[in-house]
């Protein structure tokens, strides 16, 4: 399985996800510079977290026009597996590969802390290693993670199983108190209708190294491997 990690100017979780893919899961992993124009031969492409272009103007807004993005869009439209984490998710919504928008957190502040997520759909290549309803503890670290979509879009997304993670409490209840940033319907991660593109605000790569006690993030990477080999 060949993985590519896209580096935008200002990406800073690029090394983290590279480390997990390459050293923890032993996958063939390569850097993709934002000025490159091809994604040939990759089975997974990751848009990592960070502050591409400083998140100036709006998070993800400028990165969306990097030279590599045409290839990213083609790759996604051709069914390639594309994972956007945090800033990567922001780039995905800015580029229109995923619906909605990510606005500033309700608290107006950057938030870095572990949160609980309820898996809403295990029928995607990113989550098939576990069951819908599973509760995962994964950290968030963002200032603009407040997911917004208009009611119609939300309705379609619900119907099509596009909502993959919601913020919940440790017992799995999705409530206002467990919503860290004000997202519509506690949405933490979504997929496109075809389920080959996933965007999520929490950082699975931050809890996937066996050196740590929290390892729930491994589910995502294990699922991707499983789906590739099946």
């Amino acid at each position, binding site marked *: 399985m060949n993985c590519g990690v896209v580096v935008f100017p200002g990406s800073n979780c690029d090394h983290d996800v590279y480390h997990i893919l390459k050293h923890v899961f032993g996958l063939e992993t390569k850097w993709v510079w934002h000025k490159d124009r091809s994604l040939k031969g990759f089975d997974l492409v990751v848009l990592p977290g960070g502050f591409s272009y400083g998140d100036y103007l709006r998070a993800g*807004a400028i990165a969306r026009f990097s030279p590599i993005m045409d290839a990213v869009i083609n790759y996604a439209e051709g069914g390639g597996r594309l994972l956007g984490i945090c800033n990567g998710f922001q780039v995905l919504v800015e580029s229109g590969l995923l619906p*909605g928008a990510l*606005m500033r*957190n*309700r608290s*107006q502040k950057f938030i870095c802390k572990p949160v609980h997520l309820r898996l809403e759909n295990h029928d995607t290549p990113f989550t098939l290693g576990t069951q819908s309803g599973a509760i995962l503890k994964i950290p968030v670290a963002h200032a603009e993670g407040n997911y*917004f979509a208009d009611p119609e879009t939300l309705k379609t997304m619900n119907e099509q199983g596009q909502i993959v993670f919601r913020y919940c409490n440790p017992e799995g209840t999705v409530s206002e108190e467990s919503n860290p940033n004000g997202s519509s319907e506690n949405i933490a991660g979504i997929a496109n209708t075809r389920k080959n593109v996933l965007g999520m605000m929490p950082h699975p790569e931050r809890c996937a190294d066996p050196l740590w006690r929290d390892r729930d993030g491994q589910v995502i990477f294990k699922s991707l491997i499983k789906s590739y080999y099946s």
Partner: protein
Amino acid sequence: MVPFHPMLAKVHITLKNGVLDPQGKAIHSALNQLGFEGVSNVNLGKYLEITLDTMPEMEAKKKVREMCEKLLANTVIESYQITLVP
């Protein structure tokens, strides 16, 4: 010949109706806390000043509109308004 005379495009970007404005809300409650009364609503948007080389107004307007659609505004949640100052 017209001498060189740059043109200024002022762009206002605001949230669309129906999109919650958490920043505006936060500012509103901060104003209340500071004791400012009589404020019934606050909205926060962006304001851009773009200096353009001399060009016909029509062309300038078209160009700036394109900038907004493509980059400056996120039209999923934002609308924009352009004013040209020659």
